[in-house]
């Protein structure tokens, strides 16, 4: 079965602290993974994808096939990082993404 699990519904950290949003996936093939973000009153948008191996807004995510994880990390959280974060998997389907339930990140001042 293809599945994406984000175990934390809510994550609250202080400004300047490291943040890690967890994402685990279940997929037997070669996965493509994405992180999408939805800031307050804004539309859902792509943050980063693992194939690009990029850092966006200080966030990085490494695909760990051994642990079937794609955790999103940032060393020093900023208040503007407060948002809803979704992890998504492109599995067998050419078009459909499998979505996690999302993690609401709150950065406390």
């Amino acid at each position, binding site marked *: 079965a293809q599945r994406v699990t*984000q175990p934390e*519904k809510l994550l609250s950290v202080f400004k300047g602290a490291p943040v890690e949003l967890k994402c685990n996936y279940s997929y037997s093939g070669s996965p*493509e993974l*994405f992180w999408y973000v939805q800031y307050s009153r804004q*539309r*859902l*948008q*792509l943050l980063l*994808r693992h194939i690009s191996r990029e850092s966006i807004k200080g966030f990085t995510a490494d695909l760990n096939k051994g642990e079937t994880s794609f955790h999103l990390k940032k060393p020093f959280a900023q208040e503007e990082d407060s948002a809803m974060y*979704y992890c998504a998997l*492109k599995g067998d*389907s*050419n*078009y*459909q*993404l499998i*979505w*996690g*339930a*999302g993690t609401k990140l709150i950065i406390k001042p």
Partner: protein
Amino acid sequence: GAGVSQSPSNKVTEKGKDVELRCDPISGHTALYWYRQSLGQGLEFLIYFQGNSAPDKSGLPSDRFSAERTGGSVSTLTIQRTQQEDSAVYLCASSPGPRGREQFFGPGTRLTVL
């Protein structure tokens, strides 16, 4: 260029009424998706269009839900005989093609069924 647009932005209706939600994808995008986002839930896939055809309707929750797309562009999601559990934000997204990796989302329509 304009992004994905959706109308109305908010819709309040009475239980039992029908509603139509509209999505205008990015020009040239052949793939179009409808999702439902309920409070505290993730994204629930409803339906996917490639051009005007819908190869995957598996996510539609019941036969009260239907969607169509015309001219390979605008799509409407219709909910008949609305129920309170239909209350949610309905999101539309488009992508350049069936293998498009990134989905571009609209602002959503917040549906409230009283």
